[in-house]
């Protein structure tokens, strides 16, 4: 095991896949010499050259269009959308093209493309550079979604995404780029649709996405001291979603908190809560709690942003609410 940052782990995944398959190439704004806004692709231009590491104009629709068309004809593009918020410029290529072409054509195409999309706030980047938009894509059949919460998953999920013959979005959490963790030395893939039981517990299940996993862990430690045993599940991928793991856990604990950074209303927490509430109905001892950003655009001022966005305190309080319910 080597210790490395989430950023380095992603870079290693890209490096390995570029080396493994000549059909893989990267495209995006400022990803070449500059290494991308978050320096994830730094060094790769030197290692793989300008044929495979490609800068683009500020043209999100053209970037994703190129990815769709090249994936349809034999290549394996990995496109970067510099900030998830910029999907607003190019939703059509994701949802009306990439996600639907195979189906519309009766199975006659494969679109093995990956989109890397940095997401999330907590950096005072304000309303147009801080969003978590995974819910938009979970609603559209035909596209897979991964949300790695640590360096090891960041590498393993991205590698799986690149090998997957379907369009896939990997939402990278900007706040995790500098976070370090153990990453296996030997080659590995993290399979899609297999949740990670991050921590075992008996009293309450917390399903946490992306950097909410770390916040949930922090809350769980505090709660442990207060005698509450928290099980934490990181679904890792939203499509496919390992509901079985979640339901199994909820049947054990009888209580569920779902936590994501995206706005609470309309977030994937509603979907997960609805499915869990349906499948574990008879086991629930308390209403399912959802933790998410308050329903406001993300403000610039750091104290306001902290006010809006969820962290360990919100998970902690939500757990207490489900624990205290009725009692």
């Amino acid at each position: 095991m080597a210790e490395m940052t989430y950023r380095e782990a992603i870079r290693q995944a890209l490096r390995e896949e570029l080396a493994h398959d000549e059909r893989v190439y990267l495209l995006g704004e400022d990803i070449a010499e500059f290494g991308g806004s978050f320096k994830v692709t730094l060094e790769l231009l030197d290692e793989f050259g300008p044929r495979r590491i490609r800068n683009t104009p500020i043209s999100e629709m053209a970037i994703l269009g190129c990815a769709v068309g090249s994936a349809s004809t034999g290549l394996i593009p990995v496109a970067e959308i510099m900030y998830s918020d910029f999907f607003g410029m190019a939703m059509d290529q994701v949802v009306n093209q990439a996600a639907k072409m195979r189906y519309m054509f009766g199975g006659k195409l494969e679109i093995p493309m990956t989109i890397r999309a940095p997401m999330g706030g907590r950096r005072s980047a304000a309303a147009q550079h801080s969003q978590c938009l995974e819910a938009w894509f979970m609603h559209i059949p035909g596209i897979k979604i991964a949300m790695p919460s640590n360096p090891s998953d960041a590498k393993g999920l991205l590698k799986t995404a690149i090998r997957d013959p379907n369009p896939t979005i990997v939402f990278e959490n900007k706040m995790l780029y500098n976070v370090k963790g153990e990453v296996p030395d030997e080659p590995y893939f993290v399979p899609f649709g297999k949740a990670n039981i991050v921590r075992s517990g008996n009293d309450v299940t917390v399903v946490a996405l992306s950097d909410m996993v770390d916040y949930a862990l922090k809350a769980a430690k505090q709660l442990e001291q207060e005698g509450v045993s928290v099980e934490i599940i990181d679904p890792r991928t939203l499509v496919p979603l390992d509901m079985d793991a979640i339901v199994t856990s909820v049947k054990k604990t009888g209580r569920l908190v779902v936590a994501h950074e995206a706005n609470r209303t309309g977030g994937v927490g509603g979907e997960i809560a609805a499915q869990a509430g349906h499948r574990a109905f008879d086991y629930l001892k308390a209403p399912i709690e959802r933790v998410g950003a308050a329903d406001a655009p993300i403000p610039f001022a750091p104290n306001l942003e902290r006010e809006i966005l969820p962290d360990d305190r919100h998970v902690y309080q939500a757990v207490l609410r489900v624990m205290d319910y009725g009692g």
Partner: protein
Amino acid sequence: MNNEIPIDVALSMYGTMVRIRRFEQAVSELYARGKIPGFLHTYIGEEAVAAGVCANLRLEDKIISTHRGHGHLIAKGGRLDLMMAELFGKATGYNKGKGGSMHIAEPDLGMLGANAIVGAGAAIINGAAFTAQYLGNDGVAVAFFGDGATNTGTFHEAMNFAAVWNLPSIFVCENNGYAESTPRRQHQKIQAVAQRAVAYDMPGVTVDGNNVGAVYLATRSAVQRARSGGGPAFIECQTTRWRGHHEADQQHYRPKEEMLTIEDRDAIRDWRNELLARGVSAAQLDEIEQTAAQELENAVAFAEASPLPDPAQAYTDIFTPVSEAL
């Protein structure tokens, strides 16, 4: 000029145009009789564009089309029976009945699909062109789209992208003077659509899109340049939409005088005369027509006789199954 075109190509383009015309006339009528669900946008009057462009392409070259896509697939070698079945929503169609008129596709023929989002194809075709460039073969990729599509942001991004990456993308604008009901002067101010190529430092030409020979020759030079690494090109083909935007369109917005002159230019009739002048016999041309008519008759019979898709098909083809071994 047209004499430069080898006679076999000239004849083949004639056959393509005839097949498109027959197909479109038939589907228009079948649509009126309720045989074809959904929307139907016919290509009648614009046949010379698809025929002239695709006569320059190889099987491996890619094209991408629009809501008005039947002609492009036919010109790229599409079978009328599998197309007709698709338009009928039958299991035997090119796309199992899941795509229909607006999404008909045959990647094996290099046809990456009709596309019901105006402008979208221009962005996608760059990817196909990039694949050829990346693999170092001399393939080219052609996007067809209308005059109205050149007002979409996607078109602009795609044109610039192709220019900057020097892709073998060929952008073919079928300028029929209308975007749905909106005449071109109401949706853009430039004289010729091809002026837009200036914005990308891309070669742009305007040709008579009712003259299949002119379309062929303009495309030939663009294709030759693209194949040899010379980069993308824009070709505006001025043409005429004979029928409504789609089959339900009454076209009240079209001035009466215009309605009367729509069919004055007929690319098929003109090309027939051209071929006759070059010494082709009327009988040979009639035979082409008859072959097409026969093919079409078979196509309709095939579509009629084909089964509906099994309802279980609604749930397949969403994802490509993932093999266990990565």
